[in-house]
C-alpha cells in the first residue's frame, strides 16, 4: 500500500514526484471511436489512468417506466475494473461509484439536446481499466467525446480537470499519490462555449483565496483538455474521410476496369 508516505511529493524547486511543474498536466492521449458495437466511444490515457467510455443510444428504454415524456433519459454507469487499483476492488458497484455515476450524468446532461429524443435512453458506460487519480474527470472528458462520436446533438463538449492543494502548494491534475495526500482536491467539469460549470466537487480544506485560485487553475486545465478533445475528434473525422475517399477511388477504379 502506501509505501512512500514519508517521501515528499513536491521538492524545494516545485518539481512534483513525476517531474511535473505545479501547473502542468499529465501526458494525455485520446482516441475516439474504437469500439465497433457502441454507437460512440472514446479512450483516454491521462498519466497512468486508462479509461474507456461508450455510448449506446438514443435507443428504446428498458424498463419502460423510466421513460421521460419530454426528453431522453441519460443513464450513466461509472465502474472500476477489479484490477484497476492496487488492492483488488470488488466488481459490485461501491457507494463511491454510485455517487460518481450520478455526478457524471449531471455533468454531461446539460451538454446534450435530450429533448430531441423523448421516451428513449442514452446509455453511457465508463470503465476505468487502470486508476491513477482524477478518474471522474478523465471519464467525463472521454464520455463527452463518446457522445459526440455517437452523433448525438450537443451544445458543447464537456471538458473536465481537477486542481488542488498538495503539501501546501496549489497544483493542477493531481495523480493518485497527490490525491491521497493530506491536501485538497477539486474536480471540475466545464463547457467552455457556455462558461458553464457542470460538475464541481471538493474535499480538503481551502481558504477563501486558495479556493478562488484552485478553481481558476482547474478552469484553465479544462480549457487545455478542450483543445485535446477537439484534436482527437478531428483526427477521427480525418480518418473517416480518408477511408471514404479510398473506398471511392477503389470503386472508381473497378468501374474503369469494368469499362475496359
Amino acid at each position, binding site marked *: *500500500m*502506501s509505501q512512500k508516505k514519508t517521501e515528499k511529493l513536491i521538492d524545494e524547486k516545485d518539481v512534483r514526484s513525476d517531474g511535473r511543474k505545479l501547473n502542468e498536466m499529465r501526458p494525455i492521449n485520446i482516441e475516439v471511436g474504437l469500439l465497433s458495437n457502441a454507437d460512440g466511444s472514446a479512450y483516454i490515457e491521462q498519466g497512468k489512468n486508462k479509461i474507456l467510455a461508450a455510448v449506446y443510444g438514443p435507443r428504446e428504454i428498458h424498463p419502460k417506466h423510466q421513460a421521460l415524456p419530454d426528453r431522453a433519459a441519460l443513464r450513466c454507469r461509472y465502474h472500476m475494473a477489479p484490477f484497476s487499483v492496487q*488492492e483488488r476492488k470488488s466488481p459490485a458497484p461501491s*457507494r*463511491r461509484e*454510485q*455517487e460518481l*455515476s*450520478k*455526478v457524471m450524468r*449531471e455533468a454531461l*446532461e*446539460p451538454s446534450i439536446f435530450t429533448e430531441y429524443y423523448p421516451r428513449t435512453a442514452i446509455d453511457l458506460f465508463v470503465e476505468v481499466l487502470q486508476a491513477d487519480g482524477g478518474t471522474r474527470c478523465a471519464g467525463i472528458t472521454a464520455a463527452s467525446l463518446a457522445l459526440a462520436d455517437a452523433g448525438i446533438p450537443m451544445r458543447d463538449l464537456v471538458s473536465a480537470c481537477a486542481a488542488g492543494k498538495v503539501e501546501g502548494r496549489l497544483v493542477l491534475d493531481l495523480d493518485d499519490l497527490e490525491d*491521497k495526500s493530506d491536501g*485538497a482536491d*477539486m474536480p471540475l467539469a466545464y*463547457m467552455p462555449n*457556455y*462558461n*458553464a*460549470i*457542470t*460538475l*464541481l*466537487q*471538493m*474535499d*480538503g*480544506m*481551502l*481558504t*477563501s483565496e486558495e*479556493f*478562488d485560485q484552485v*478553481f481558476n487553475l482547474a*478552469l484553465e486545465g479544462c480549457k487545455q483538455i478542450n483543445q485535446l478533445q477537439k484534436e482527437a475528434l478531428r483526427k477521427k473525422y480525418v480518418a473517416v474521410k480518408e477511408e471514404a475517399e479510398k473506398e471511392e477511388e477503389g470503386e472508381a477504379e473497378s468501374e474503369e476496369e469494368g469499362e475496359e
Partner: protein
Amino acid sequence: MSSVMASKVRQKRIAQLIASGKRLDGRGPYDYREIKLESGLIERAEGSARVRLGKSEVLVGVKIEAGEPFLDTPNEGVLTVNAELVPLASPTFEPGPPDENSIELARVVDRGIRESKAIALEDLVVEPGKKVFVVFVDVYVLNHDGNLIDTSALAALAALMNTKMFNYEVKEGEIKIKPGYKPLPIRNYPVAVTFAKFNDKLVVDPGLDEEQVMDARLTMAVEKDDKICAVQKGGDGYFTAQQILEASKTAREKAVELRKLVVKE
C-alpha cells in the same frame, strides 16, 4: 394524496418571483427557513439530534462500536455515515437498498465531517491496526420538504456534539465497558450551505417546490475557521464561474449563522 409536484402554475410563479429577487414564502434570497434543533432524544444511542428546517425534518443517531481500522489508517478510528430516505418521509421515497440520492446525501455529509477532521479519530484507537472504535452516523430523513443536505449536516454535527463515549478498559484484548461517560472528542464544526440556481439568480436553502424548479444545486461545507471543506454540485443544470465564486463568499457568511445554532460559546 399529498401533492409532491408543484403545479405548473405554481412552478412558473416560483420562477417569476425568484427572477425579481423574491420568494414564494416571503424569504429573501439568502434567508434560511426557521431552524429548530433538539439534542439527545434517543437514549439508546450514544448521541442524537433532530433538526427541523421549515418542514424538513431529519433525525441523526450516533452509535459507537468496536471494529477494525482501515488498512491505510491503522492509527485512527473509523467514521461511517449512512442516510436513509425513510418511506414515511415522502411519497417519492421507496423502501429498498439506498438509491443514488441517499448515497449522495450520506457522502456529502460524510465529506464535511471527514475533511474538517471534526472527530478526533486518533483518540478512538484501542490497539493500533487491530481494534478501534467505529462511529456510525445514521441520518434518518423523517420529512422531506427540500434542502435535506443542510438539514442532515446540521443534525449530524449536533448529534456528534451530543455523543457520549462510554468508559472502557482492555482486558486480555477484550473491551470491557465501565460505568461513566465522556464526550466524544470533537475538534471542528462543519456546516453545509446549499444554493439553488435559477438562471442568473442564486438562493440559499431551497424548499421542495423550489428544488423542482431550480436549474442546479450547489453545496459548500464550511469549517470553523471559514475554510471550505467540501463542495458538491448536483442537478442537471450548470453554474457560471462567477456564481461559484459568489457562492463561496456567501457560504462563509451563512455558515457562521448556522453554526451558532449548534455551537454555543
